[in-house]
């Protein structure tokens, strides 16, 4: 796989070049002072100083709201699918890996989801490896890592002299060759420095799951611990909405007469009405069942369906939960 070095100066030029081919999103400080993927170029300068973005990049592929169909004169019409190329720069390896997981449902699943698929086809993901981790990170416990290339087309590693760019697949190779003039040789010293950066980051992470976690969770289905933890859950939806692998959605019609649209919006299994039947029966009636569903779905059911857990260890749920639930604590208490 091609590995090249780009200077920090040339990085801006790279983004500008990509901007000629499509829409570019790169990290910069937003109005709230937090680093987010914003449309490039913008007033704030590019920054590589961030842990991770508040929101996950899943919104680029599965937006908070999306029109599925338009109704015109009583007939359903499909919306035109996007044609613009999109480039995301600075996506953390955990978030990139999450895309591969959501692909299993939306892209590889039968039938595939045409809206998601089209956006994935039209988007190039340039990842940025982590040199620092946060206390809430645990990617290595769930099959990822700070320098993991799963889900990226090109992986960047920030170094003193510039960024190492490593193509992850054919799409990545094409991108690098298209900007070859901006790139320099990646010397063995550069490659070494990159490896050290990544290894340093890996060393900061502590393991979370046991090798036996799926079986433990299966056995723990009726554990009273679900109640002791679950009763704290407010059902606020923050964890799901920020989670890079949560994909549940609702479908509603916003129609008057014979004109309008059918739209899908993010939904959350922690909401009480999620499983509410019209009859009033709710199979998950209290926060305990819903908390259990969340943890089980990520760490057990997903493994049973897809042979991989659906958590990438990004830590957003832990950092943002208004009452500081930590699913690592829950897993530990359950012996998983």
């Amino acid at each position, binding site marked *: 796989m091609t590995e090249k070095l780009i200077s920090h100066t040339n990085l801006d030029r790279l983004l500008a070049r990509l901007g000629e081919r499509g829409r570019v999103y790169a990290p910069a400080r937003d109005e709230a002072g937090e680093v987010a993927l914003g449309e490039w170029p913008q007033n704030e300068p590019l920054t590589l100083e961030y842990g991770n973005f508040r929101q996950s990049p899943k919104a680029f592929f599965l937006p908070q709201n999306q029109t*599925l*169909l338009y*109704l015109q004169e*009583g*007939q*359903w019409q*499909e919306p035109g699918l996007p044609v613009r190329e999109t480039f995301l720069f600075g996506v953390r390896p955990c978030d990139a890996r999450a895309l591969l997981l959501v692909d299993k*449902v*939306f892209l590889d*699943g039968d*039938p595939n*989801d*045409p809206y998601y698929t089209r956006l994935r086809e039209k988007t190039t993901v340039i990842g940025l490896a982590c040199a620092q981790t946060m206390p809430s990170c645990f990617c290595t416990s769930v099959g990822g890592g700070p320098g993991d290339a799963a889900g990226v087309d090109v992986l960047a590693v920030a170094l003193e002299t510039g960024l190492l760019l490593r193509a992850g697949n054919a799409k990545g190779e094409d991108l690098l060759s298209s900007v070859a003039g901006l790139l320099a040789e990646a010397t063995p010293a550069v490659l070494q420095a990159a490896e050290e950066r990544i290894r340093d980051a890996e060393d900061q992470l502590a393991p979370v799951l046991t090798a036996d976690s799926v079986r433990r969770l299966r056995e723990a*289905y009726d554990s009273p611990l679900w109640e002791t933890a679950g009763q704290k859950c407010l059902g606020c939806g923050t964890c799901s909405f920020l989670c890079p692998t949560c*994909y*549940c*959605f*609702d*479908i*509603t*019609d916003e*129609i*008057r*007469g*014979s004109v*309008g649209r*059918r739209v*899908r919006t993010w*939904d959350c*299994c922690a909401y009480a009405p*999620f*499983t*509410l*039947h*019209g*009859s009033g029966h709710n*199979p*998950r009636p209290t926060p305990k*069942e819903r908390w259990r*569903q969340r943890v*089980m*779905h990520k760490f*057990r*059911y*997903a*493994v*049973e*369906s897809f042979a991989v857990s659906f958590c990438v260890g990004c830590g957003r749920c832990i950092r943002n939960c208004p009452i500081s639930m930590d699913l690592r604590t829950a897993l530990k208490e359950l012996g998983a």
Partner: protein
Amino acid sequence: MTRNPYLPYPARIQEAIVENESRDIKTYRLAFEDSASAAEFRHLPGQFAELSLPGVGEAPFGIASAPTEADFLLFSVKRVGLFTAELHSLEPGAPIGVRGPLGKPFPWDRMAGRNLVIIGGGFAFTTLRALIKQILHPEHRAHFGSLLVVYGARTPGELMYRNELAEWRKRDDLDLHLTVDKADAGWNQHVGVVPAVLEELKPSPDNTLAIICGPPIMLRFTLIRLAALGFPDDDIILSLEMRMKCGIGKCGRCNIGGKYVCKDGPVFTRQELASLPAEY
């Protein structure tokens, strides 16, 4: 290019007949607006479709017509909420969208060469009508052993598809037993709940598959009865009712354990269900 799975096929209501005495179940006969849609929509008994009314939304309904009933689709709809109330107000000629066919059908291949015990309760009989009609078709009947059908409802007026039932009673290639909780003056068949009738009939589990559709309470006691008669869990087939939205295993609404009821079901064996958390 494959069809967008969220896009309904345009169809029209040809006929809407009231199915039961309390008048809250109507059977709709639908026809596709164009022959291309009709040709694409190939279903098997046990599958369902999402019926679509713009501005109201969608809801899943078991397909009551057999694949051998070529030119139309039948859906029986009980009026219980927003969507079904709206549907009940529609007249023949009204347009309606159909998305499907969706879900896993009854295990047609597994059924070949076996004796069949088909058990239905109340409104859940819809997809069983599709199955029985398909089995009874001259091209198929010889592939199966004996066919025992037990169908129960609260009162005689609540039994569905009474025309079909009358015809089936005359046939000698199936053994049809109808039962009601509360009889009326003209009733001369079983009185009692479905599990009680099973107790009476004592079907043998040898080389037999049991297929059950019914309300939760009927299911519970029927399963107990079947277990007592020696039916192994893998030979008991059930159809699960669940709240659904997309119907294609994406939105997560019908997710139980590692399964999506819309995609991995709604037909499951009892053994498969036993491994799922009891959240339905």
